[in-house]
Structure formats: structure tokens, C-alpha cells
């Protein structure tokens, strides 16, 4: 077999530099030449502007890349994150946190949401956030690393990071270059395919340089310079389920302490988000241009911002995924593979997961079709699972205050989501697939947060003694609150954790 010795990455943003870092780490120093060339259109907005809101998988993944949390946070303005806060989604005024946390605990093998459902059916007012250490801490603006003591309630959550996306991209670039990745400092002009098998043979840069590699990564953003422009892999639009197609982004200075949550606030034709990093907030406004004119969107967005420190940017996109993520000798990573709005904060996770899968299935120069087939099968499942959770946020709502929300409430759902909702609504059960990113606690928090309670509780929960159940669940609430209140304020903890350390002697 002929090992790949040259990889060319096309792109300018996080996906390109993350790919460079992960491939450089996986292939060992100096064995493979990895070059990065700029795409035709420059860094993709939807991929890069909001990538700073992450999921807990980022911690172990960074560690595996040799990046220490302390250095990364110190150098990238990062802050801690306990979950996503959703406001005004189900009804205006409503709020919930999708936290990275256990929610309550099982009793006699009965899942916690069934216990809570039983109490709710008995007339008690219940809020799942009361039983999640991370959700409580998020509300209180508190944070510390989870306890290592498995018996402590303070060990029942995990955490992610809020990154400043442009700083993070530069950080990855510097690390990639440190690992020997070559920045080609040129922009893609055209591509050449091999006649015999359709593989990409070489690319030409604007300055006339011709670059040949055995394997290509398309990180060029939604345009898909290689995967679509050369290989025509096709696009499956999800616009009928995710109608938002426009975004505005702006950075504002820090005025209040950074909260350990990403905020997603539903608006009349989409949603607004705020990602708090140390020096300020990265803000976004996501909307459907069919339901809201651009100038109205800009006015609505600006009205909520003060002290804008980076000029607002506007861009359009269409949500959906590439029909094939791996075609011939080219794999698409980031927005060139799938375009999803920032809701759910899975952007960076999906890039890392795709690259991990690619490294697992890393081909030799022949790029066997079976490897690409398996990669495409698995990634299609992974993107589908994330898409379903996003669509759920828009669809499961009682809002009818705008045409946009009426559309979302009444739209025909993808079959897979239809089945998930049916099963949860009828019985409080989760239909999970092999490739799902979001697991039971995630779905549970979003279902309940969006106002979908099971019509029937688990019959086993119905058998429990109500007074005893009430006591036990109440005890859980107290333990959770006590654990959350025992954490320090996030800002204080963050300052300690990112302060320069004395050099070791």
C-alpha cells in the first residue's frame, strides 16, 4: 500500500486549522506534508462566527491534541460553560437551561423525569432545572471544576468552554505551524482532476503555483470549493425544517460578569445568541429572510447591543448537508460538509468528531470506497441527530405571535424526529440512534424545556408511594441547590484559573 505523504487543506477558518492540527498530531511529525491554502471565498461566516459555543467533548479532545486547558484559556480569552440557556422559546417569558449535568437521579431503576412527571401529575409545580447542579450554578452565575469525588453532588456535571472564535482560529493556526503544517499563503484559483478515476490531482493558486497532494480536505465553508465545485457531491437542503437563512454577528464589550451559559433568545423570526468570553460577548442574530426584512433585522439586533467593538457582519446561508462528505480523495469538514445554525452549540464538536472518524478510517492513497462509504453512513447519522434536536426547538412551541413561529409549529417534521417526539410524548421514552451526539439527558431537558411532557408517566412510577416520592425528590432538590451554592462565582474562579502562574522553579 502507498501511504499518503501529502495532504492539502483548503480553507481559512477554524475547520481548516483544526483539521491541520488533528491530522498533524495523528500522522506524527515530519512524515506527511500538510499544506493549507486559502479558499476562494475566505472564512465562512456561519462556520466561524459562532463556533465559540462548545460542548463538553472539547475538554478531552483538546487534551488528546496536547493542548492544556490553562494555556488555551489564558491565550484565547476563553471562559467556562455549563450549558445553553433558552429564553422565550416555548412561550415568551419562559426559560430553561440545557445543562451539561445529570438531572436528578433514578429511584428503583425509574428514570428521573418519570418521577417528576408523577409529581407534576399530582399537582406539584416542578422545574427540572432545580435538580441539575449545572443548571442551578448557571442561574447563580457560579462555576468550579466538577469534583473528583464520585459520591459528591458536585461531581454530577461536566463543562465546556466559551471561546473567542477569531482568537481560537489564530491559536490553532499557530499550533498547526508549530507542528510543521505549511501555510501556503495563497488563494485557490482552480482544480484539476485525474481522468482515470476522477480523483483530485492538483490545485492551482491565484499566484500560479500548482500544488499536488494524494488527499484533500475541503474546509472552504458552505461553498465547498472542492467537494462541490470539483466533485459535485450534492446538497440536501433542510430549509423546510430550519428556515433561518441569515445571520448578523457583532462583538460587544464586557459590561457585566460573564455568565457560564450561552444564551439563545427566541425572536420573532429566529433567535439571538450571546456567547460570553472574557473580554466581551460574541452576539448573533439568526433569522429567516422570508419572514423578516434585512433592515428590520439589523435594527432589532442593534437595539439590543451597546458598545459594539467589532463591526457587525451579515451573511446568508442555507441549512442542510452535503450528500457525500467523503468523495474520491476529498473529505469535507465544517460548513462544507453541513450548514447548521449555532443552536445546540455542536459546530466545533461535529468538526472534531468528523476528524476523529476520518483519522480512524484514514486511507492510503487508493482511498478505498468502503472507507468512504462507512464514513458517509456514520456522519449522515450524526448530522441527522443534531438536526433533529435543532428542529425540535423551533417546532415544539406554543408561540403563535408571528408567521415564522406559526410556520415552525405546523411544519411537517422529518420522520426520525416525528418518531422521537411521538415516543417521548406518549411515554417519556427516548428513541436514540447509533450515531446520536445528544443523549437522554439532552433530549429530556429540551423536551421538557420546550413544554413537551409525557402524556403518561412510567407505570412503575405510578406504583410509588406519593408522599415518599415527594420527600425523596425534595431531598434531591436540596442536595443540588446546596452543591450549586457551594461553588464560587464564575468570574472569580475564572480570574484565578487564568491568572499568569509563576514559572516553575
Amino acid at each position, binding site marked *: *500500500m502507498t501511504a499518503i505523504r501529502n495532504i492539502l487543506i483548503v480553507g481559512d477558518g477554524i475547520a481548516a486549522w483544526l483539521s491541520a492540527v488533528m491530522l498533524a498530531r495523528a500522522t*506524527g511529525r515530519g512524515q506527511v506534508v500538510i499544506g493549507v491554502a486559502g479558499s476562494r471565498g475566505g472564512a465562512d461566516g456561519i462556520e466561524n462566527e459562532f463556533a465559540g459555543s462548545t460542548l463538553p467533548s472539547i475538554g478531552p479532545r483538546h487534551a488528546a491534541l496536547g493542548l492544556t486547558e490553562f494555556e488555551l484559556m489564558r491565550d484565547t480569552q476563553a471562559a467556562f460553560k455549563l450549558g445553553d440557556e433558552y429564553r422565550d422559546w416555548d412561550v415568551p417569558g419562559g426559560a430553561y437551561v440545557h445543562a451539561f449535568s445529570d438531572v436528578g437521579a433514578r429511584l428503583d431503576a425509574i428514570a428521573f423525569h418519570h418521577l417528576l412527571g408523577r409529581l407534576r401529575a399530582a399537582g406539584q409545580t416542578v422545574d427540572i432545572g432545580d435538580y441539575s447542579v449545572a443548571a442551578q450554578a448557571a442561574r447563580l452565575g457560579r462555576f468550579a471544576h466538577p469534583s473528583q469525588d464520585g459520591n459528591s453532588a458536585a461531581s454530577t456535571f461536566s463543562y465546556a468552554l466559551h471561546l473567542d472564535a477569531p482568537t481560537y482560529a489564530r491559536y490553532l493556526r499557530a499550533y498547526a505551524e508549530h507542528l510543521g503544517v505549511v501555510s501556503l499563503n495563497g488563494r485557490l484559483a482552480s482544480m484539476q482532476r485525474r481522468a482515470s478515476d476522477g480523483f483530485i490531482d492538483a490545485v492551482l493558486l491565484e499566484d500560479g503555483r500548482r500544488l499536488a497532494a494524494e488527499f484533500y480536505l475541503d474546509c472552504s465553508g458552505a461553498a465547498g470549493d472542492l467537494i462541490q465545485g470539483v466533485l459535485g457531491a450534492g446538497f440536501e437542503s433542510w430549509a423546510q425544517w430550519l428556515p433561518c437563512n441569515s445571520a448578523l454577528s457583532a462583538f460587544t464589550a464586557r459590561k457585566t460578569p460573564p455568565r457560564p451559559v450561552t444564551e439563545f433568545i427566541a425572536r420573532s423570526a429566529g433567535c439571538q445568541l450571546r456567547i460570553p468570553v472574557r473580554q466581551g460577548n460574541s452576539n448573533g442574530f439568526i433569522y429567516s429572510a422570508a419572514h423578516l426584512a434585512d433592515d428590520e433585522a439589523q435594527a432589532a439586533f442593534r437595539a439590543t447591543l451597546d458598545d459594539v467593538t467589532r463591526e457587525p457582519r451579515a451573511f446568508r446561508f442555507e441549512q442542510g448537508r452535503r450528500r457525500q462528505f467523503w468523495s474520491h480523495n476529498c473529505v469535507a469538514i465544517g460548513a462544507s460538509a453541513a450548514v447548521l445554525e449555532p443552536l445546540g452549540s455542536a459546530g466545533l464538536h461535529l468538526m472534531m468528531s468528523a476528524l476523529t472518524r476520518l483519522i480512524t478510517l484514514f486511507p492510503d492513497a487508493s482511498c*478505498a470506497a*468502503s472507507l468512504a462509504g462507512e464514513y458517509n453512513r456514520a456522519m449522515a447519522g450524526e448530522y441527522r441527530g443534531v438536526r433533529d434536536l435543532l428542529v425540535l426547538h423551533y417546532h415544539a412551541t406554543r408561540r403563535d405571535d408571528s408567521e415564522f413561529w406559526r410556520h415552525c409549529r405546523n411544519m411537517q417534521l422529518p420522520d426520525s424526529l416525528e418518531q422521537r417526539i411521538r415516543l417521548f410524548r406518549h411515554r417519556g*421514552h427516548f428513541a436514540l440512534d447509533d450515531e446520536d451526539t445528544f443523549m437522554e439527558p439532552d433530549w429530556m431537558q429540551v423536551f421538557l424545556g420546550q413544554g413537551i411532557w409525557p402524556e403518561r408517566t412510567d*407505570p412503575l412510577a405510578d*406504583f410509588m408511594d406519593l408522599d415518599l416520592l415527594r420527600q425523596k425528590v425534595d431531598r434531591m432538590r436540596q442536595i443540588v441547590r446546596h452543591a450549586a451554592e457551594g461553588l464560587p462565582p464564575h468570574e472569580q474562579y475564572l480570574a484565578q484559573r487564568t491568572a499568569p502562574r509563576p514559572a516553575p522553579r
Partner: protein
Amino acid sequence: MTAASLSRFLRPEQCAIRLVESQEIGIVGVGEATVPHIRFFNQSLGLDEADFMRKTHATFKLGIEFVDWARLGDAYIHPFGDYGRPFHGVRFLHLWNRLRLNGDPTLLDEYSLPVMAARQSRFALPSTDPASVLSTFSYAFQFDATLFAPYLRAYAEKRGVRRTEGRVVDVGVRGTDGFIESLTLANGERIEGDLFIDCSGFFGLLTEKSLHTGYEDWTHWLPCDRAVAVPCESYGPLLPYTRATARTAGWQWRIPLQHRTGNGYVYSSKFVSDDEAAATLLKHLDGKALAEPRMLKFVTGRRKKTWNRNCVAIGLAGGFVEPLESTSIYLIQAAITRLLELFPDRNFDPVVRDEYNRIMDVEFERVRDFIVLHYHATERDDTPLWNYVRNMPIPDSLAYKMELFRERGEVVNYKLGLFYEPSWVAVYVGQRVMPKRYDPTLEYRPLEELQRHADSTRAAVRAGAQSLPTQAEFIARYCGMNP
């Protein structure tokens, strides 16, 4: 198992459980082999492991040895544990494969602690120190099913299950919706219920004879349709594994218990007569037969809906994928776990039933594919059975998995269902499905570095295995039967 588990999670004042059992219908199996999941079942019931083992005359199981499967003369063990340690994030299999393609003849076995321990009849409980090579395995049991049933019966009865001895002569089905209403016993007693669980075996007394659920026949992939079983006296060291030896028209099991050995020949009646099969079995016992051989008939496949109306079919009533990988008890356990998760109320919401059936279909199909692999991936052409299975078309869900492994040793992982990566690796390699390539990132590392990693792993495995006591010693100390 179902009664014990339901009685653990449902209290009698909440839900009355009755079990109807006829002594006239015996328990199948003379020795039952399991997979490690059985330990979670026992833990969920709060059973004491040593007590359970003592009362069921159980032994430990580190895996299954397959003899004569890919070629006559071959023998490999499918262990409960992984091979080697990853090398710079690359799975050990790839490293082994690179060395193999470079001419290194070392068997994959030598990098597996449970295989090496099993080969020397050694056993101890896994270490809890994740850094130790002695933590790199899991274990299951081999026990006497005819003793496990009464053991569970005592457990269930103590928790309020009412057991009735009797034979069901009539099943009352409601005219409006076809739900089962009642059972009538030979003595005239009529028993009503909301939920009926059919554990009547292949026969499917409720699900098939009354509800006519239908059966999906998998004989074209798994042609064995009979088994003849006999216990024999123990002989030789007490092996911590089950052996499955390929025969002309099927395969023979050998399951060592503390006090005797269970044996059986699973065969296809198309390729051998019952008398011949029984003679072959008796000829290949390693001790004196302790009973007359018993014959069983079955059809591999699964019930079209393991949950139909208000009846859930568990065990052989739900389906049968033959005992080659000791999955019967696992599938019972999976059915019980899912039933508890999706426990119905009197409305019997079809959404719940459909989800249960979806999951159980996946469970059955993934076990099926794994077992079909053992038959299909063979080079044997010495008998009609082996010629048939070698040439038969296989399920698409298996074909692409095999292709991916052949291409470069990649195992398709899944979250739902049994058998994880090390199991697939063991059987692919054991059946001589060899990866043509390996993870090419290994090309970027010097061969000597790979060799050092392999050598140190092998040395650690060898030393670890040798440090264990024999299973006989360990059992005598831990859970020996009273003499």
C-alpha cells in the same frame, strides 16, 4: 428470569405477578454458557455472586474456543477482553497487522490476557487498577440451567410471585381487539391478566398458537435446526471457557461446570440424521455420559413482533439464533430490560410496543449477523453443510461490515446491541478474515518502535496470565460446591 426481575422492580401490592409452569415441560439445556452481561442481571437482583455460583455449580468463563471452524486444525478463542494497548491512539489490531504483513508470525492471541489465561486454565477476578494488564478482561459464567431456574424461582416467590403448577389447555382471546384475556389450566382454573409474557419456548403457546404472530425464518443463513445434548463426567483441568468444535453438519458444544460437563451437537437435519448426530456426540465426549441424549428441534429466526397486543414473547418464544455465542440468556435479559423501560399500562400504547419491537429487532439482527459470520467465513469445503454456508448469500448488514474489515481492519461499531469491537476482531481474525491493509498512520512510525510496543505488551500479558491461579484453585476458594 422474567419473574425474578419483575418481582424485583414491581411490588406485589402494585402489580400481581403469576407464573404458570408445567413440570411436564422440561428446561432446555444441560449447561448454560453466558456473556458478561449476566453479571449486571445478577447485580440488579442483588444476588451474591459466590452464592449463585455455588448453588448453580457454576464456573467462570473467559471466552469461547472455536475449533476447526475456518480450517480443520484451527483453534481460536473469542475472549471477553481487548487485544493489546493502543499505540499513539491507533488500535492495537493495526499494529499487529502491520507486523504480520511484515512477516511476524505472532498470533493475536498472545496479546490478550483472557486468551492466555484461558489456555492455561487460569482465572481470577479482574483487577480494579486500570493500569494493570489484569484489568483488561471481563468474565461470564457457565452454570447448570436446571439449577438456575429453581434459584430464581425461590427469589421470585419470596418477592410475591405466585407460581402455579399446571398445563395451559385454553387461551381466552377478547373478540374486540384480539388481546389475551385469560388462561385456562388443565384442572379447570381460569387465570386472568392484563399483560401476558410468553416464556413457553419454541412452541410460542401464547404468541404463536393464540395470537398467530408469525415467525421470520432465518434457516437460509443459519441452517442448523436440531440439537442433541448430554452431560458427561468431568475430565482434565477445569477450563474457564466454552468450546465449540465444528463438525460435519454443525458444531459441538462443551460447557464445563463444577461437577460435570455439558455437551451438545447442534446440526442441520438436512445434512445428518438424528441417530448419526447422537452417535457423533457420544463418540466425542471426554468423560462417561451421565444421561440419555436428549433431542431438540428448532427453527432459527425471530417472532415477527416479539411484543404483539398484550403479549411479550421472551426467550425462545421470541426467537432463536442458536447457542454458538451463548446469546440466549443475553437476549432474555435484553428483553426484560427493555420491557421494564417500556413497561405498559392497560392502554397498551402502540408507540411503546413499536419502539420495543424496533429495539429487539436490532438486538436479534446484530446477534444473528455475528453468528452468521462464524459459518460464512470459512475455507472448509469438506462437507455439504460447510459448502452451503461458505457460498450462501449473507445479509447486507453483515456484508459491508466484512468488506470494511477486509479492507483495513475496521470494525463497524454501534451503540445498540451486543458485541463490541474486540469480539468482532477475535472472530474475523479467528475465521481468517484478514485485513489487507492497516491504519496507514503507522507507516509514519519506525517499525522498531512498533515492535517494541508489541513485545512489551506480549511480555506483560504473559507474565500477567502466569500470575493467576488455576480456575480450580480459585473456585475452591471462592465458590466451591459443598462436597
